[in-house]
């Protein structure tokens, strides 16, 4: 910033620029900041903005990548609104999002409180091991969970078998497949959220807890009246991040059911919006319809972000 203010100051003084070399260097100085940030914007423009805008364009066509591109106006969107597969995918996405996020954040909060306990030994070891699921490849996670939940030879059904319970075909039913995918999502993200909460907890001064105990507040009261309000910004952040991630769940439903291709089950019982997009765009090569789904997903994410923004500002106002 200082580089750009120098020539402005000379103008205000009303003094003419004396030497051309000075002008050139100040010109470079004015341009330099833009040059520094330019690589990001150039790359973002090519790989972020252009595909985004181009998606809106392609959505108006019946677009065969190796054939004809026919302009069809809003026909893809009309079809989308009447397509039961779209509403099904929407229901699945929100269902999996709710089942995976709410228990996950509660679990993370509880774990963070435990890990923050003053008398916990090897605290760093436990804290770091929380991140292991997060850095494990989703494909590996999907394989392992697929085996745990497998109908014929899975761990869960083996235990149920010992208890003389009939095997459950998790993937076959809507709720069962949601639970299986949610378990994967939770496994992957709970450590990440735990560490965020832990960081938030460690920022709370211990003195206010001491003061509260002096005033006679028990552990639960301290948790609900002190810990939760102090963590509010972190909680909002994790909810926002989980919403964005949850609406784009793709890899887990793709890998959980290799035999049913891109539909995640014969009845599309766990096909999410992102997977539906992929199926139409890159399975059927119907780029126009796939793009229309992409635009719809974009609108849904924007709406969710606006709701989050509204909640955030309201909480700030409450303070």
């Amino acid at each position, binding site marked *: 910033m200082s580089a750009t203010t120098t020539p402005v100051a000379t103008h205000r003084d009303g003094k003419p620029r004396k030497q051309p070399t000075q002008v050139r260097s100040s010109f470079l100085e004015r341009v330099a900041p*833009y040059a520094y940030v330019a690589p990001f914007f150039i790359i973002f423009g090519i790989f972020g903005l252009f595909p985004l805008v181009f998606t809106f364009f392609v959505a108006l066509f019946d677009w065969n*990548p*190796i054939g004809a591109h026919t302009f069809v106006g809003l026909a893809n969107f009309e079809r989308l609104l009447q397509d039961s597969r779209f509403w099904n995918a929407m229901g699945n996405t929100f269902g999996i999002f709710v089942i995976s996020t709410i228990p996950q954040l509660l679990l993370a909060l509880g774990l963070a409180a435990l890990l923050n306990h003053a008398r916990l030994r090897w605290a760093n070891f436990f804290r770091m091991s929380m991140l292991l699921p997060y850095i494990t490849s989703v494909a590996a996670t999907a394989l392992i969970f697929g085996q745990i939940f497998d*109908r014929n030879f899975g761990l869960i059904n083996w235990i149920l078998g010992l208890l003389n319970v009939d095997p459950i075909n998790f993937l076959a*039913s809507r709720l069962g497949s949601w639970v299986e995918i949610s378990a994967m999502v939770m496994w992957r993200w709970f450590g990440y959220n735990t560490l965020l909460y832990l960081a938030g907890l460690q920022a709370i001064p211990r003195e206010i807890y001491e003061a509260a105990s002096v005033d006679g507040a028990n552990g639960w009261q301290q948790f609900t009246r002190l810990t939760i309000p102090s963590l509010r910004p972190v909680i909002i952040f994790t909810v926002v991040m989980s919403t964005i991630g949850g609406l784009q769940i793709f890899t887990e439903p793709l890998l959980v059911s290799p035999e049913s291709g891109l539909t995640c089950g014969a009845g599309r019982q766990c096909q999410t919006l992102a997977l539906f997009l992929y199926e139409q765009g890159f399975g*059927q090569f119907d780029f126009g319809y796939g793009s229309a789904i992409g635009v719809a997903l974009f609108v849904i994410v924007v709406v969710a972000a606006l709701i989050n923004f509204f909640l955030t500002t309201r909480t700030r106002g409450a303070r």
Partner: protein
Amino acid sequence: MIVSSTAAVGALALGLLSGCGSSGGSSAPSGDPNAEFTFWSFTGIGAKDSVAEYLAKNPNAQVKLSEVGSTTETATALTAALAGGDVPDLVMIQGDDLPKFVENPSNFVDLRTLGGNDLASKYLDWAVGAATGTDGSIIGVPTDVGGLGLAYRADLFEAAGLPTDPAEVAKMWSTWDGFIAMGEEYTAATGKPFVDNIETTVFFSTVNQVTEKYYSPDGKLVYDTNPQVKDAFDVAVKTYEAGISANIAAWSSGWDPGKANGTFAVTVAPSWILSGIKNAAPDTAGDWRITTVPGVGGNWGGSVIAIPARAAHPEAAWEYIKTMTSADAQTEHFKRTGTLPAAKDSLTSDAVLSYTDDFFGDSPIGQVLSDSVLQFNSFYNGPDTSAIGAGLLNALADMQAGNVAPAEAWQTGLKNVKDALG
């Protein structure tokens, strides 16, 4: 300044984009049949062996082989390449992926221009037909077909009091009603399911034994009114209702262990799946037999080899096709890899007809598979054949999962298809 630098960014971006767009431009076709050419294949078809056989016949040739991935992944990569990238000179396309490419034949070299108008006559009619565009151009030469048999466990059949000899079994289940009756007998005797699933083992077989499938010969959609399709579907539903299916989908996690553990006694066996059975259940060597499917023949899979229109070295690629798709070369490739030939002379050669394997108890595999494709009916496949098949198949799979009542399965299938076709 801001304006001009944004313009510069924009110009740069446009430059890069137009660069991407033009990079796939074709160079002048080279007439040299020994020029180095790129060859994309999928895995599991023995492409490395094919190339080695070709180099033995033509030592001056230079082949750059890429095994791209699964059949679907290869088709996806080819689509991306055709849409605007560097195309290979030669590419293998699997049968299920073929209709999308045949729909736009201008993306490929019409091989009649290189191989003459009688090119098609050497191969099974329906195999060439699948690679023939509505304008009559032939975009691919058949390299192999997926002759269909059923594999069964002779040891389990014997324990259930059923015949074990392939000829006797084939006679007993010459019709699908006979197949279901045998299954009921097996399940009653052993308490175990007879067949792995109904959607691939039964429906894929029955729906391909028709004379007209999802399209009429002139390309109109008839999947919902054609009684042959409904009948094929009903056989699958009937098999399910008989309670003889293990309801284990092909390629699901229970499929391979099921073959090894005797969870079911019968599974579908197109030629290319035989090595998969060996790998999945090595301990059952000698227990399996291969015999004819109920009904009239069948085919599942197969592939063609094609030259994209923008290929840099079509002559060199054609030299490969000419050499490797001859009846003799296909017979030789069959002996080495077990890939069932598509050339008529090769299918009736002694080498193919006398082929047996002691893993499958010396069943007459070559005879069974060859008969199966020679009896196979030809019918018209349109661009949405795969999507329609998937819609109906999903309804059956969903019925097996207990989510759809058998009486509603057909309507569910039709709804799946209508959604898919939009």
